[in-house]
């Protein structure tokens, strides 16, 4: 549309001033106004002229609560800040200081358990790394290295296979893939001896027999750090 036509510009300004424009047209017109001073002037004339339609309306006394409502909206919110206290009385500072101390404390505590005692990278049938396992004091941190889509009726179960012994279940792989598998005391004791870790495909809920029933997907040796 050619907005330079005088007639059109006048008509648009008039429409806008009356309020006839639908929202999209209004936005477009406001955009035009931004860098068109002459159009703003034209609109100003119309707005002045039309505003005088309200000039004959009777004034109405305004109840006091309106002013109270306005004041409540425009007054800066009063903050209930108590009179100045020594800085150590400042609750927020104190809380921040406590948080720092706590964080340090927890950090120190956590550090004791926080290093993985064993690592294993399990490989799939084609010898590609498929699953990283870190053993901590009472849990295993597992992290898939490839994306695997399991049917909802299936689950992956992790087994410890002692040299020359039967596989012992360590638990199911987390549904989300990455996650933790908690270890019982017995399981923790197992992991002190050299062993192989394996993941088998099982029905949802894990092997019904206590031994792997499905194919072994990944396996690898647990290495002491």
């Amino acid at each position, binding site marked *: 549309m050619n907005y330079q036509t005088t007639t059109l510009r006048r008509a648009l300004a*008039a429409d806008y001033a009356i*309020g*006839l424009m639908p929202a999209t047209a209004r936005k477009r017109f406001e955009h035009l106004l931004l860098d068109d001073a002459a159009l703003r002037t034209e609109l100003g004339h119309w707005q002045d002229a039309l*505003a005088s339609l309200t000039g*004959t309306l009777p004034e109405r006394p305004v109840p006091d609560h309106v002013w109270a409502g306005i004041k409540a909206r425009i007054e800066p919110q009063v903050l209930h800040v108590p009179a100045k206290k020594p800085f150590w009385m400042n609750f927020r500072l104190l809380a921040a200081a406590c948080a720092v101390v706590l964080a340090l404390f927890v950090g120190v505590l956590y550090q004791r358990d926080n290093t993985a005692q064993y690592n294993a990278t399990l490989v799939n049938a084609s010898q590609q790394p498929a699953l990283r396992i870190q053993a901590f004091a009472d849990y295993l941190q597992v992290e898939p290295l490839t994306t695997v889509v399991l049917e909802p009726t299936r689950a992956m179960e992790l087994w410890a296979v002692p040299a020359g012994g039967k596989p012992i279940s360590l638990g199911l792989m987390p549904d989300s893939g990455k996650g933790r598998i908690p270890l019982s005391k017995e399981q923790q004791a197992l992991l002190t001896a050299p062993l192989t870790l394996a993941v088998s495909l099982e029905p949802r809920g894990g092997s019904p027999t206590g031994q792997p029933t499905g194919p072994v997907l990944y396996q690898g040796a647990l290495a002491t750090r």
Partner: protein
Amino acid sequence: MNVQAGLPSAYRAQSRRPRSRAWRSPISIHDADLLRPLLAQCALGNRQAFETLYRSVSPRLHGVAFRFMGRSDLAEEVLQEAFVRIWYNASRYEPHLAAPMTWMVNITRNLAIDQLRKHREQPLADGQQDALLDDSPSAHEQLDSEREARALNRCLDTLDGMQRQSITVAYFQGLSCSELADHLAAPLGSVKSWIRRGMERLRRCLES
């Protein structure tokens, strides 16, 4: 703060200063010369000036809000919101474009129209619906009742009945062209041309 000293009397006394404009400004009730500095002070965060402004124009804006809403509770809500906006947007008022009163009336009117549109979307109870619908004749009664030599009213008189009616109804109800056509039970094309020709004629009249 000298802005508010003796406002009400100063108000009317100074109120007829000629304005250098091609268009005669029909706004004269509340004089721009007094309101402009008040708005400027509001833009600087002067609460006293704001209160003075409120005291001097709120009855008029309340009248405007009531004309649109037709119910005192709704009118008061609109009025309150309008003043909150006036306070926060005072720095955006551009004195060279429109008279202060125009600016404030427009803020009030836009808020009122937003509310009306909301209410139109959710149908009102019967009584309220009537109150909204039958207010176009009262607009004319009010316009007719005060035949002052105000430029716009004089110029409105030069329009055909339907031209005048479509402009005033659209103005006071915030109707789009098609809603206006429904409201006036007239074809959309006719409504558009009434408005177009009416505004052209108004313009010529105001410029003369």
